[in-house]
């Protein structure tokens, strides 16, 4: 590289060239380092998003999460099934991580009914016997927690897909989201309709061939292998359909709304 001094067209000495190039490159380096530091400070101290359907995350990070969701939803397919295992591999001691929304001492599974909100004022009530009369689907799969642990578990119940067909709720599935919540409404999950209708999504009433225990979400819980455990709501009280994101307990606490696997 030839560096010519524009003033008198006299070529610089090697020492001058060295000094010049060292100065400019290091000036650039320090300027970029300072810009990086400032950029990081901006992101790290960015204000939290407004409390809404999602909350508890820095504004730019939430925007990034939502964009990343859109990118990865392109890869979602009903043909991508979670790996299943033989029953013998299923854990006997199924891990209980949390009972948020299911701490009511007075809750009586005997009086339980599932409410499906079909429209304003039209609520379908279904009892457990009716659900048990539908075709039963079993699944033994690796349940994955957002914390990082996983466990092979055995669940059985009605496929969400079969449930929709049987109760002729197909029209409602033209909406974009399904919302589920516990009977007291304190724990909620929101699911994109594609994930809810995935062939391995199950409304489960059995675990390890026995009726669900309270700690595991009796009498009916969601098992959705294409999502982290946080979306696998225990004890479903109400199901709703909407075109807006329904409330979601952990999305209000800084987690990704989609949380898909």
């Amino acid at each position: 590289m030839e560096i010519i001094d524009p003033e008198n067209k006299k070529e610089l000495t090697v020492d001058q060239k060295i000094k010049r190039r060292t100065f400019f490159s290091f000036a650039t380096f320090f300027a970029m380092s300072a810009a990086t530091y400032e950029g990081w400070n901006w992101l790290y101290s960015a204000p939290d998003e407004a409390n809404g359907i999602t909350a508890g995350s820095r504004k730019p990070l939430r925007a990034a999460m939502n964009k990343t969701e859109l990118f990865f939803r392109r890869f979602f397919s009903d043909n991508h099934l979670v790996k299943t295992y033989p029953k013998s591999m299923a854990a006997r001691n199924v891990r209980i991580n949390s009972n948020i929304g299911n701490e009511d001492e007075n809750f009586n599974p005997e009086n339980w009914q599932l409410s499906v909100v079909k429209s304003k004022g039209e609520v379908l009530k279904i009892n457990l016997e009716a659900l048990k009369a539908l075709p039963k689907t079993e699944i033994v799969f690796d349940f994955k927690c957002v914390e990082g642990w996983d466990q092979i578990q055995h669940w059985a119940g009605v496929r969400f897909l079969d449930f929709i067909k049987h109760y002729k709720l197909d029209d409602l599935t033209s909406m974009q989201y399904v919302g589920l919540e516990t009977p007291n409404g304190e724990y909620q999950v929101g699911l994109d309709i594609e994930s809810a209708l995935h062939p391995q999504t199950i409304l489960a009433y059995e675990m390890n061939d026995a009726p669900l225990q309270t700690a595991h979400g009796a009498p009916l819980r969601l098992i959705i292998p294409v999502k982290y455990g946080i979306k696998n709501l225990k004890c479903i009280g109400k199901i709703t359909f909407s075109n807006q994101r329904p409330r979601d307990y952990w999305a209000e606490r800084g987690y990704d709304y989609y949380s898909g696997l």
Partner: protein
Amino acid sequence: MKVIKEKHSLAMRWTHWVNFPILTIMIWSGMLIYWANDTYTITIFDHTFYHFFPESIYTFFNIPYRLAEGMAFHFLFMWFFTLNGIFYVLYTIFSGEWRNLVPQKKSFKEAWLVLLHDLHIRKTAPPQDKYNAAQRIAYTAIIVMGFGSVLTGLAVYKPVQFYWLCWFFGGYNLARILHFSLTIGYLFFFIIHIVQVIIAGWNNFRSVISGFEIVIKEPTNVAVLTHEDKNSSGNENLVIE
């Protein structure tokens, strides 16, 4: 006589320095995630030698109870980490720079001699081009590791949609272990890298920022060398006074 010898192209310098803060953020946010299920240890015959990580490290870096935050940072900066890596690899391929970087047949034998030389056990080091045998192996391995991190990360991130990737890495748990191990690998690489840079000295360090090195050459030899250099390789240009 001082001669300016071009060493690192602009693209290599930029990708190198862009990677540094990104990888730092990825390792830090990865720690925030790992903490939520920190089950890895070095255990041999029931004796645990090390638990990843001791409480003191978590406290020092303010790691506990920041899983959601860690995921949010990790899944944003993964994009920059991946893109920077892809850009670097494409650059090395199209510029021909890969010839200086990819290990040769003799590199694996020579790397030992380089190591012995660096440890002051052996007096002479084998002759080298831009990078010595050990550097070729290290700088190629780190790129393979980078791709390993991206792919094992993707396997753990979307184990259902990318089930084939998860299968390729031996399942969810093994993919997670590999992802973690690669990170530990970066930390070792970093330590050795820093020590080597310090030993190599200012002229070498400056070249990763300014792009050139200063070499001292006899005028007559330089003229001949320059002539040959210009004919034989397009990678190195000498500016002679």
